[in-house]
């Protein structure tokens, strides 16, 4: 038994050596923090470190679950993510289907490039662009609003407006990426299907519904599983950079990740933020397993693992 293990090891040692940097990296920077998540059950003291601090059982979690912020965080995180998943799915698939209808290569490329470039920008830069419109004193949006005779809005203090600004910004940045992905999938369809359908007299809408969309289902399900698995995480940059840290906007811009970040860096509340982080990770983990199991039951080919 032992000698066979040694033999296996000798035979595989060079391939094992190739994986070693990655294995060590993941051990130090992914698995060690997983173990370090026990800090959520401790009263962390800087001088004692994670291991030396005193155990406090579930009291950090009790604080978290009794916090008046919790409902707002969960509502915002789940609500925005649900909106993002649906809007970017519908928008990306629609744009991809329309792109597929185009026959001019040059224009096709041009449209794709224009829609793709925000993907190359950081949220910091997008926040600058938003600021050019939303700056209450000199921003362009308020000028246009004034031009049609309405009174200007103090955008960085107007929480309700951000329920629309954030999804718009998200779709603006993501649609090109999503559309190209679905467009690539459409190009992968055997053209014989389309020709056969045309010969049989199918119209555009029938072709889309019976051929194009069904061919996209595997990609749609995989991307949606991934997105639902991350429904407790937020795109931190969107929620942190765009509202420019304006405290009056928290009602509609505060999500779990920005809360964890604030609790850690501004309030220095290690216990509460680690409890929130661990809860988020656990829920996300169970969610991916659950969604994957459901998809596996419906159609094993579309499941992630």
């Amino acid at each position, binding site marked *: 038994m032992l000698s066979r293990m040694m033999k296996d090891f000798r035979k595989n040692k060079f*391939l*094992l050596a*190739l*994986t070693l*940097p*990655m*294995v060590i990296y*993941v051990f130090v*920077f*992914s698995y*060690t*923090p*997983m*173990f370090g*998540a026990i*800090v959520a059950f401790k009263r962390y003291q800087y001088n004692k*470190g994670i291991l030396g601090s005193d155990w406090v059982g579930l009291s950090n979690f009790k604080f978290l679950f009794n916090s008046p912020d919790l409902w707002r965080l969960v509502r915002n995180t789940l609500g925005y993510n649900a909106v993002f998943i649906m809007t970017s799915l519908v928008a990306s698939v629609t744009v991809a289907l329309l792109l597929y*209808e185009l*026959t*001019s290569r040059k*224009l096709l490329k041009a*449209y794709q*490039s*224009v829609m*793709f*470039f*925000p993907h*190359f*920008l*950081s949220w*910091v*830069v997008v*926040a*600058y*662009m938003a*600021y*050019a419109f939303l*700056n209450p004193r*000199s921003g*362009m949006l308020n*000028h246009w609003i004034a031009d049609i005779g309405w009174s200007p809005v103090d955008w960085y203090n107007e929480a309700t407006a951000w329920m629309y600004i954030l999804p718009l910004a998200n779709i603006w940045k993501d649609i*090109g*990426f999503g559309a*190209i*992905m679905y467009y*690539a999938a459409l190009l992968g369809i055997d*053209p014989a299907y*389309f020709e056969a359908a045309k010969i049989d007299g199918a119209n555009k809408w029938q072709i889309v519904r019976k051929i194009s969309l069904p061919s996209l289902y595997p990609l749609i399900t995989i991307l949606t599983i991934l997105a639902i698995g991350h429904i407790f995480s937020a795109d*931190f940059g969107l929620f942190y950079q765009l509202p*420019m840290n304006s405290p009056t906007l928290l009602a509609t811009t505060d999500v779990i*990740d920005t809360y*964890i*970040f604030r609790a*850690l860096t501004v309030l220095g509340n290690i216990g509460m933020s*680690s409890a929130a982080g*661990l809860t988020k*990770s656990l829920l*996300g983990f169970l969610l*991916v*397993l659950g969604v994957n199991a459901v998809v596996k039951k419906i159609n094993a080919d579309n499941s992630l693992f």
Partner: protein
Amino acid sequence: MKRTADYSWSKLPIHLFFIAISVVFIVPLWSIISISLSKESDLVTVGYRLIPLNLDFQAYQYIFDNPLPILNAYKVTSIMSFAGTCLSVLMISMCAYALSRSDFKYRSIITFYLFFTTLFSGGLVPYYLLMTKVLHLQNSYAALIIPLLGSVWFVFLMRTFFQQLPDSLVESATLDGAGELRIYFTMIVPLSTPVMATVGLLQLLAYWNSWYQALLFIDKQELYPLQYLLQVMMSNIQEILRNMQENVPVDAGAAVQIPTESTRMAMCILAIGPMLFIFPFFQKYFAKGLTVGSVKG
């Protein structure tokens, strides 16, 4: 696929739709450029406009007269992006190659070991404590580079690519007496430039645009990457501009002269310039990188 007529009138509504969309995508970028080219006094009196009232280069002039902060940020971003991308492609591809070999005994266990980290994580707090209190990496290049280094998804992406290389390649090399490491470096690496370029470009972009690491771990201005410098400028432009002219004695009269609004936007343009300029050339690689390697198999 049949793509006969290049232009056809029936497609006009679709083209109109895409032209409208394109305007929506271009106007934000256009407005940043326009503000950066506006006269500061116009920005104060009439506000931002899509067409500058008076074309004026004083913001750029100001930055070129005091180039230290942006040059330094460029330096930090370049070092971080270059070192990070090289290390990361090397680490990811070595691991991916080993995992692509069907005769590698520990293949499935290592795959699971890596995959599990995409499902579950310890969260921000233990990670932050590890980086700052255990490894003491705050205010170092390591803190900027390490967090983006090893992406498990890219390992799977590359593994899928390597699996498509014919088995006979490795077999014949082994028969010729080449060791595994030599096979990897002399045969596999040259054969896989497309996938290396894809992952390399995606990582380069991720590093170029990264600010989160700096937000967490950096508080010295000489280690600010570009994006983080921009972020700080938004709230704190006066301070950054004061640091720009460190050797010049600051007097109140001079401070008023600083074209803050247009300089801020000019900095933004200078920061995204290189990316906007090179990205069209590499677009096809990005599109290729989208088909994430499946975990199955």
